[in-house]
């Protein structure tokens, strides 16, 4: 399954978006957020463990090492078998925020390169806001990208992923599951 929730066989092509690899000239950004009717601590128990991304619908399995320490790694296996490798770059339980990077993904799974992300929980009482933001380049590293690897395609894919993930967190937390 593609990261952007489309059905697809596990990609055959090997893509690699390593640190600081070649990329297009224009970095994209997006910020998505959702309000949840629950205390921030409760929301954090669902999303605060870097080694468990089961709250994101396409993720079937999270395997990794290093817990929630800086430089911890995880491999997400998606429904259909594609994998995404990620690395934790910042983690602060006190402010309920962490940042991570994709170290390896096929652009057919998520059409981005040099992807980095922050997620945070803020709130008071029984109201929380989860904010998820990403910075990334399009999937195509050169000029004149094909439509499926354009800036627009990258933003659309990440937005859809974030919206689906945030909706899933809200549902899990509010149902108390």
């Amino acid at each position: 399954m593609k990261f952007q929730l489309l059905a697809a066989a596990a990609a055959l092509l090997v893509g690699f978006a390593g640190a600081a690899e070649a990329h297009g000239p224009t970095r994209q950004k997006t910020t998505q957020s959702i309000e949840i009717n629950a205390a921030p601590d409760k929301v954090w128990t669902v999303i605060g463990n870097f080694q468990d991304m089961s709250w994101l619908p396409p993720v079937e399995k999270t395997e990794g090492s290093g817990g929630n320490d800086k430089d911890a790694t995880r491999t997400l296996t998606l429904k259909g078998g594609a994998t995404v490798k990620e690395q934790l770059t910042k983690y602060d339980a006190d402010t309920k925020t962490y940042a991570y990077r994709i170290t390896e993904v096929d652009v057919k799974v998520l059409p981005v390169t040099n992807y980095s992300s922050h997620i945070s929980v803020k709130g008071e009482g029984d109201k929380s806001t989860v904010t998820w933001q990403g910075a990334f380049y399009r999937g195509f590293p050169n000029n004149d990208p094909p439509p499926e690897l354009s800036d627009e395609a990258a933003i659309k894919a990440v937005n859809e992923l974030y919206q689906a993930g945030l909706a899933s967190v809200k549902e899990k937390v509010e149902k108390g599951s």
Partner: protein
Amino acid sequence: MRAAMVALSLVVAGAASADEAFITNQNGDDLTVLDLATGKTVATIPIGGKPAGVAVSADGARVYVTSPEGKALTVVDAAGRTVLDRISLEGGPLGVAVHPGGSPVYVADWYAKHILVVDPVARAVTARVDVGASPSGLAVTPDGATLLSADRDSDQVSFVDLKTLHRVATVPVGQRPFGVTIDRDGRRAYTANVGSNDVSVIDIASRKVVGVVKVGERPYVVGLAADRAFVSNQYAESVSVFDVTTLQTLATVPVGEYPEGVEASADQTKIYVANWFSNAVSVIDVATLKVENTLDVGDGPRAFGAFIRPTPRQAKP
């Protein structure tokens, strides 16, 4: 009494740094003109084509802006705040520098292994200079003799003789150098190495790396003021500061998210940092190494290049 003293110091500070900043907002497709004395936006100039690189001419009259997606070099009348011309180029124009004499303009093609030499009046590419892969930052020595190109994907800096327009040397630096900055004496150059999280210090005369300074994650470019180097660390959301003589780290200053373009005020008392994700410019006091103000700009400021224009009042005191 206290209010009067504050007011007085504001007046003095204003007079001391009456520069303007021309900030390329890549996601917003425009150019913010900031009056740095008041911290206010005084103009927003539509550019298009995802503007990234910027170079103010030495006399402050012109601002050259590259648009890598739009494949163009835009010529802006700095004082009039108007677009004078838009010159179509090829490839992915990104890094840009102006000869100290006002012309030509040098433009790095991110996708090719060359620098375009552009005559902005004739609106023509007059030469292509071969360098390494993905040339990024460009800088010209103050005497106008040599152009330095940070060849990002070749892990080197190319030295180009501007009389012959031939590369005369390559200097290996850290991994993936992006920005390159030359000091005011033309003695040393500094590259921000995105891949190795450090800064290479190059002696220009001997064409040798004379020092390497560890900085934060994903450094973008180096700004210089009063014998201090200020390095924007994109992932670390900070600016690393080191002493250019001892190469010792002096401070790590927290700024906004994804800090990119960095440049000093003409009087070297302030450092301005464009924060790409935060849509803001951080103002760092060079003496105290504290952020003293944060100025709103457009969407996705990169300000890659020389973006500060001394106003005529300051240029000719």
